[in-house]
């Protein structure tokens, strides 16, 4: 039984990696790939249905090309994922290492702070942050980064505490290896698998939250192409122009699904290996 699951899992893994890779390429090369300028309005062509000449996925309420907007929207989504996960990872690493290495009151204080952040409903906290610092993608990325940093801090702290007890770390310490070297050679590489899994899952969450905030009008600002923003304006035309909601919805769904699946598969693979 086991090998068959592994094979199936491997196929799925390659599929998700292929999707994510393609998405990344599309995002990077958006200006080359997109058939039209995502911002240019063409009022006479508004609500053109998918397949109309020049509008493979239809045109929106201003006559803008939906396909081009989705392609440029991938940029916003991936950028938000990368930057906010980067911020969360950095903050989480620093706090987690500090808490795990120093222990005692520092540990208690830092973890209390992290638990406090975690105890708020994520989207609500993001809305609060964005309302205070202003609407826009940079604010959204910073907010998501801060909000998700406790997830990383917890993992890093727990791993640090465990690894610290490992004989090879203790002997390195006894031999007088500097702390910086212990962290970079012994601690970080050994906690990497768990961090990678957490990164992929958080990436998916970040994309969903960006889409939600943009849908609420707090994230990406018009006329910027963003999947969540596209859904926001599409909700007015659900009965008459369903494709306006369908394609950005599909893009969000597939992307989030892929990252979640990737996280799960990596988690399984790494656990099997242990």
């Amino acid at each position, binding site marked *: 039984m086991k090998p068959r699951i592994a094979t199936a899992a491997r196929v799925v893994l390659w599929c998700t990696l292929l999707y994510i890779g393609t998405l990344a390429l599309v995002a990077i090369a958006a200006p080359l790939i997109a058939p039209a300028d995502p*911002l*240019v*309005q063409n*009022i006479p062509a*508004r609500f053109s249905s998918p397949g109309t000449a020049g509008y493979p996925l239809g045109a929106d*309420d*201003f006559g803008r090309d939906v396909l081009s907007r989705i392609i440029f929207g991938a940029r916003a989504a991936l950028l938000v994922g990368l930057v906010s996960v980067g911020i969360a990872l950095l903050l989480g690493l620093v706090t987690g290492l500090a808490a795990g290495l120093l222990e005692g009151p520092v540990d208690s204080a830092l973890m209390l702070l992290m638990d406090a952040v975690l105890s708020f409903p994520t989207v609500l906290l993001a809305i609060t942050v964005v*309302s205070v610092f202003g*609407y826009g993608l940079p604010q959204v990325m910073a907010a998501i980064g801060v909000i998700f940093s406790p997830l990383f801090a917890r993992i890093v702290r727990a791993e640090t505490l465990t690894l610290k007890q490992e004989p090879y770390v203790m002997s390195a310490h006894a031999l007088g290896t500097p702390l910086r070297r212990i962290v970079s050679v012994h601690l970080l590489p050994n906690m990497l698998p768990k961090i990678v899994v957490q990164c992929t899952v958080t990436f998916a969450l970040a994309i969903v939250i960006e889409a939600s905030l943009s849908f609420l*009008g707090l994230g990406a*600002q*018009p*006329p910027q192409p963003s999947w969540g923003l596209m859904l926001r*304006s599409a909700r*007015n*035309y659900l*009965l*008459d122009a369903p494709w306006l909601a369908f394609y950005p919805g599909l893009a969000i769904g597939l992307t989030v699904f892929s990252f979640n699946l990737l996280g799960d598969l990596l988690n399984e693979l790494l656990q099997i290996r242990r």
Partner: protein
Amino acid sequence: MRRLPFSILAALIAASIYAGGAPEAARPQGDTLRFALSGNPDTLDPQATQGTLTFQVLRSVYDTLVEPDHDGRIVPALAESWQVSTDNLSWTFQLRRGVSFHNGDRLTAADVAATFARLLDPGLGSPHAKEFASLREIRTPDEYTVVFELDHPYSPLLSSLATGWSAILPRSLIAAQHDFAAHPVGTGPFRFEQWIRDNRIALLRNPDYWIPAVPIVERVHFNIITEVAVQVQGVLTGDLHIIDMVGPTDIARIERDPRTRLDTGLSSLVMVLAINTRRDPLSDLRLRRAINHAVDKQSILDVAYAGGKVIGTFMDYGDPYYVDLADLYPYNPQRARRLVAEAGAAMRTLDLVLPQNYEPHVRAGEMYQQMLAEVGFDVRIRLVDWSTWLADVYAGGNFDLTVIGHTGKLDPDGRLSMFESDNNYVGWTDPHAAEMIRAARRVAGFEERRALYRDVLQLLAEQVPFVFVGSNYRYIAMRENVEGFHMDAKLDTYDLRRVRLR
């Protein structure tokens, strides 16, 4: 699966029988008009609020001394007639006899005097007190005569007396400190019955109303429904008779259905692209004219505001004071580009601020951005929430361009008095215009006032502190069996007195 306890089942069955049967038998369906109200009013005290929702309900509970007719002219209501002295300082109203309040009191001049004494009482803090600032005293020479004595001539008084906040309240209840906010008592066509907050306001026919055989329906239920989709569904299924929220994409569906019809009319909103004339480079009239020529107004109305009519100045179409200036700045990108080149100003990025909660304005803003980009303006959109817009843009003047709609006023002074000085959000004034605005307040004759306002409106249009885009259509959907409904576009209220359900 767990089974439902018997008691719950029994309760469900009992409830369904009750809901399905009893009330239907008690009163015939056709006699209750069910009207969708788009929100919960903040209060039902007509003197204590500016909220339209309040007046949409209270128009049926109260009367005013005079009222606008269907063409916007002021006609007698509780006052049968009125005269103005030659110096325009004293306004005498003869009250209608035989009018009674819902609590049984007979309407007399003392009620009118008490009503305005309450409105001007600083303790109440009415937002409308300033409209009666010219009032020196109210005299009541006899039971049915009221005289408003003014400090200085003030022609807009008559329009103020026709609006909802000039509703006449009974003196006895004012003296008794009655809670008008929760339980209104007036002389209107319907008596207040019940207000279940966030759910429904129920009114009952007033059999003693001063117009014979009016009103016609037995009850009015204002069902409070804030979602467009729910309102539309309600009128399509017949749960509601009249709704006033219709999305652009619902229009076709309502028109297609033989059981519903659509009442379409121009709203009295003037949609504008406001230009901050205090700031460079927009203080240059040539650039403001360029902006005006760059905007395809009909396209903005059709796409962002679900249809409308282009108007060229700060007065809604259909107003007796309207001046047709719609063709002053036709859509002409070439001319706009020429004007921009002529001005030759160092162009910086313009800050277009949009009120985020008003989606049509945001959509219009996206279109302005593109239209202005085509003639050489670099415009960046900034979305703000409504309170920020009011504080930062409307009060603070922190913007280059913004998009908004200005509501209608019965008297032109209501729209134009803000240009008496440059203390308005676009920072525009003109000594000649200011003088005419002041003069129009002092003269009482319609033709004289019209001539003065015509010049003010012409100046406003030429000087372009705003791109006056137009008025949008407003849509009211109703069941096909509803007759006699009238919406007052100026006041944004509903006259339900002659509504009949066939």
